[in-house]
């Protein structure tokens, strides 16, 4: 192994003349070359054990630990389910509306009437996902409303009571044109006036009254169907299959409305601001005005969203210099703004219209009192003084009532604010996406409930799909457990929402969809996921190569050597 000792030892006897012990050695050394003596078994096995143990430690302990400690944690996500949600494979939303019929007539006639009306209705309806089910409500005189046989034999339970979309009341009259109907503005009730002779005879299959009612109902829910159909068609996936075809102009109209409306949120912040280019008016009776003109509307919306209201007074708020200044129009006898300038009317840089703190979007309502020199200020094209900024809020230019007075009033009383408040409430309604028809507010609200629920459902599931795609696309981003939890929550609530839709419990559906949406957003916008997106595994290996390389080489070499020797010992090679 080492040169000099070998030299010394092997040639030592040469120098030593005598020495019995050495003679044999010398002889042997001189005559033959012999291999080193065969290694004893135990040392051989010991060595192999050593090498093996090294290998074991490295493979079993070292590498896994190293890999684990330097790995990026990725929580498991139910990717398949997520994509299925996104593709709408799991939930096909249906909107079964219950419509109760209250008829002060004999049981079987009523049932017959209902049946025929249902037939007529089904013939009219071409949108399977959204379908109206008539059911007979016992006349008020009936003792128990709970156990009630409905036409298709199903029992009308107590809890379905509040899920009744519309109540059709048959009222028999003698005067006036019949049949005629009246929709009550503040309750979901449709009164149908008829004369006795219009009741269908048990034998006849159809009757004018039945068809009339069917047409009325269809008319009432036409817009809702259109909206839902539009919603289904716009959202990708298999569910577009059975959506009804929309005419181009309705589609365009719905498009316009949906772009104008705000995204749904459980809470909206309403900000009412008084802007004035001068220091007048510096005060307004806003509390009372809000009390009188706005609170009722907001209360009726409580079932869908909550609202916070704040107001502010901003003086010396001038137009942005970029905007074209208003110019005097002799025809209108007023200062006018061009329609194209209306978008730049709000001076976002100067006017403090920052969104309110807390979750939910802010809806701004700006009341602008122009300077005396520029009053009255109108929109050139239509002479109007208020307009709506899609998904942002509304603006109302309040020209002082008595313009002949030489200065703007320093204080705006409640009644002076009335027109503005009315304009604002209209704008609010359309900003929240409330449908124009039917005339009854509760009906419109319930329609809104269904539409919101559906849209939330779709957006939440598409968010899930996006998250799944992200997860697949970027294998090097960390995914904390919270994301997985949120995803599971989302899926669960989506399922609930879907079920309650199917069962016609729309309020519950909205609740679940709302939660699902929130969770999905939370999962998607998890902050820690974008952390080390630029630290791929190659980099990691490169950093630790100086350690891995030198350690690996001797291990492998020794391993190979031993293997060779073992094979050698097993199949002894013929010596030449």
């Amino acid at each position, binding site marked *: 192994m080492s040169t000099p000792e070998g030299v010394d030892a092997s040639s030592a006897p040469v120098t030593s003349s005598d020495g019995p012990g050495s003679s044999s050695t010398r002889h042997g050394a001189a005559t033959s070359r012999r291999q080193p003596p065969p290694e004893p078994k135990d040392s051989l096995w010991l060595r192999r054990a050593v090498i093996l143990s090294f290998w074991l430690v490295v493979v079993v302990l070292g590498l896994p630990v190293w890999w684990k400690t330097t790995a990026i944690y990725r929580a498991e996500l139910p990717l398949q389910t997520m994509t299925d949600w996104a593709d709408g494979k799991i939930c096909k939303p249906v909107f079964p509306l219950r419509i109760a019929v209250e008829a002060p007539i004999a049981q079987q006639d009523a049932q017959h009437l209902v049946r025929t009306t249902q037939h007529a209705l089904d013939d009219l309806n071409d949108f399977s996902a959204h379908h109206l089910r008539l059911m007979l409500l016992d006349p008020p005189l009936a003792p128990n409303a709970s156990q009630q046989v409905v036409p298709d034999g199903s029992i009308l339970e107590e809890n379905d009571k509040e899920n009744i979309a519309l109540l059709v009341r048959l009222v028999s009259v003698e005067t006036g044109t019949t049949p005629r109907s009246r929709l009550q503005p503040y309750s979901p009730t449709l009164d149908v006036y008829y004369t006795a002779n219009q009741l269908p005879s048990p034998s006849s299959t159809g009757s004018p009254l039945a068809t009339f009612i069917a047409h009325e109902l269809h008319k009432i829910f036409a817009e809702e169907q259109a909206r839902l159909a539009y919603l289904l068609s716009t959202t990708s996936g298999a569910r577009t299959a059975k959506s009804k075809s929309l005419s181009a102009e309705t589609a365009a109209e719905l498009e316009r409305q949906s772009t104008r409306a705000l995204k749904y949120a459980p809470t909206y912040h309403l900000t009412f601001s008084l802007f004035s280019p001068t*220091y007048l008016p510096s005060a307004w009776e806003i509390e009372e005005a809000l009390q009188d003109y706005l609170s009722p509307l907001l209360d009726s919306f409580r079932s869908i969203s909550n609202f916070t209201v704040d107001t502010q007074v901003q003086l010396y708020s001038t137009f942005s210099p970029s905007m074209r200044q208003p110019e005097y129009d002799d025809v209108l006898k007023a200062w006018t703004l061009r329609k194209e300038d209306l978008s730049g009317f709000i001076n976002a840089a100067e006017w*403090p219209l920052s969104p309110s703190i807390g979750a939910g979007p802010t809806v701004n309502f700006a009341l602008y009192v122009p300077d005396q020199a520029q009053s009255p200020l109108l929109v050139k094209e239509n002479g109007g003084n208020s307009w709506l900024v899609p998904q942002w809020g509304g603006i109302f230019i309040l020209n002082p009532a008595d313009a002949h007075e030489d200065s703007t009033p320093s204080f705006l009383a409640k009644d002076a604010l009335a027109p503005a408040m009315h304009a604002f409430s209209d704008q609010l309604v359309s900003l929240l996406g409330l449908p124009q028809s039917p005339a009854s507010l509760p009906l419109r609200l319930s329609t809104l409930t269904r539409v919101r629920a559906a849209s939330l459902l779709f957006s939440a599931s598409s968010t899930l799909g996006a998250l799944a795609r992200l997860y697949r696309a970027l294998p090097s981003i960390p995914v904390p457990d919270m994301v997985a939890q949120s995803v599971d929550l989302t899926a669960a609530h989506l399922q609930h929402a879907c079920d309650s839709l199917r069962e016609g419990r729309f309020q519950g559906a909205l609740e679940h969809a709302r939660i699902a949406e929130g969770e999905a957003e939370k999962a998607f916008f998890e902050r820690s996921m974008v952390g080390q997106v630029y630290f791929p595994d190659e980099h990691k290996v490169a950093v630790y190569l100086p350690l891995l390389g030198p350690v690996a080489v001797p291990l492998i070499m020794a391993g190979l050597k031993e293997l060779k020797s073992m094979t050698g010992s097993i199949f002894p090679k013929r010596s030449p």
Partner: protein
Amino acid sequence: MPSFLSLLLLSIILATVSAGSDYTERLLLRPLPQSALLASFNFRSNDSQLSFEEQNFRYFPRSLGQILQHAHTKELHLRFSLGRWDAESWGQRPWNGAREGGTGVELWAWVEADDEDEAFSRWLTLTNALSGLFCASLNFIDATKTIRPVMSFQPEGDHSNAPNLHLLHGTLPHEVVCTENLTPFLKLLPCKGKAGISSLLDGHKLFDASWQTMSIDVRPTCGIDGHCTLEMEQSVDMVLDIDRSKRPRDNPIPRPLPIEEIKCDTSKGYNAGDTCYPLDKSSEPSWNLTEVFGRSLKGACPLTDQEGENAETVCINTPPERTVDVNTTGSYIESRAVGDTLRCYKLPTGHDFDLNLPSQQMTTGLVLPSPPLSAARSINGHGQERGSIQTVITNPSPTSAVEFVYLESLPWFMKPYLHTLRARISASPENPVLETYYRPAVDRLRGTHLELRMRIPAASTLTLSYDFEKAILRYTEYPPDANRGFDVAPAVISLIDPAASDGRGQYVRTTSLLLPLPTPDFSMPYNVIILTSTVMALGFGNIFNLLVRRFVGAEEVVAGGGGLGALVRGKIDRLKGLLGK
């Protein structure tokens, strides 16, 4: 001593204006020695607590109001400061130092919360929201920069109806206050710098000042009738160098004057055409508002009262002999107070207003009141491991002793040794420390918080010193400019004065410090990994070889010597064998 009186009265006047009206503002100008000019702006607006809670904001800015409600903050004090107040030549600080902060940003607030954790989380919401509002990095005030003072700060407002309040305090000494902080500040004002004294505030001049501080104070005040109002006070105090700010903005370079314009001392023997010993000008420089502030004062803000004390929004505090010409097209009213050393003006609405002070040889000067305390703090010693901090606090008053609270908020990587804390008073053996509150730091979680209640006898100097050790940060904890050093927040000295005129108290702040920490070479880590891995690999290789190598006795080896020769020979033999086959 008329001027001293005037100052006392001034502070009283300025303190009492808030009482009646909803919005008041006032500008006090005071020429200081060395051609400096102190301009202190003050704006107050009140909203009733009721309308505040209903979020109907009139004078109170909506953005700030919502933040306060959202963070359940009952009282707020926010300061942006720049530069140093030169007490020895400028005298007592404006507002007795109660409306100024340490260099950078300082924020303290009383937050309503059930327990400490909730209070802290609300505090975080507050700082984050404020940083968005004021374009300042207030959101960097985290747990390590937050302390809970026990003695230094007292609430100014009336908190009878708010039981469990928590006081939190945070500073950002490294924050550079600049124009982008002024713009949101002005937006909070009802007249928005479009009218009234706020129309004078111009970023360029404000941040060219020798010393300036912006403050925002929100506090509830309740009357006897239990009717509470929320008072918001904004103030800007600045000391302008008149010569410097008179330079036009398009030509700010202080080129040497032509020799003709320099007054030479002809009495000198060597005085000649090319040699000129400059005389320092003894006369007061001439100036007017427009050229000093770079803007013109656009009349009064009409929201202020139209008559009475609060209507006089511009006051100038000069010796009576100083001529002050008013230059405006509108109608104004001048009124003089406290021995004519204070002249106040009711501004015209809608017309520009300007004060013009010609250059003038003065015979009398204002007697500026001397500050109650002066403090200087410095880091001593050198080296990477440890250092010591020394604070010298002087009480100039020949008669009265002063009692005060000294507050230090140190970063966690600066570990003071409390046993080395020494407080010595010149020429008296007594120990000035009356009371000590100490909350030690926890690495990476919170900083050190030290409060000392001390007492200085009249006309003596207190020297406070303690040693500290510098921690070594983790590689990722160093900021990009690690070699600059780390800023240590100024110490706050709050005087305990039984005869305090208003509820604000008196404060003195030291300058902030720069603490150099040992910094690594930031290109190292990769090399270190490689180096260590190589060493480990070497060790491993040796041990492994020792374990698996087989040793044989020398005489057992192939004869004819081992080593290279033998190797070669062996190879040759094998070759032969192969060929032979």
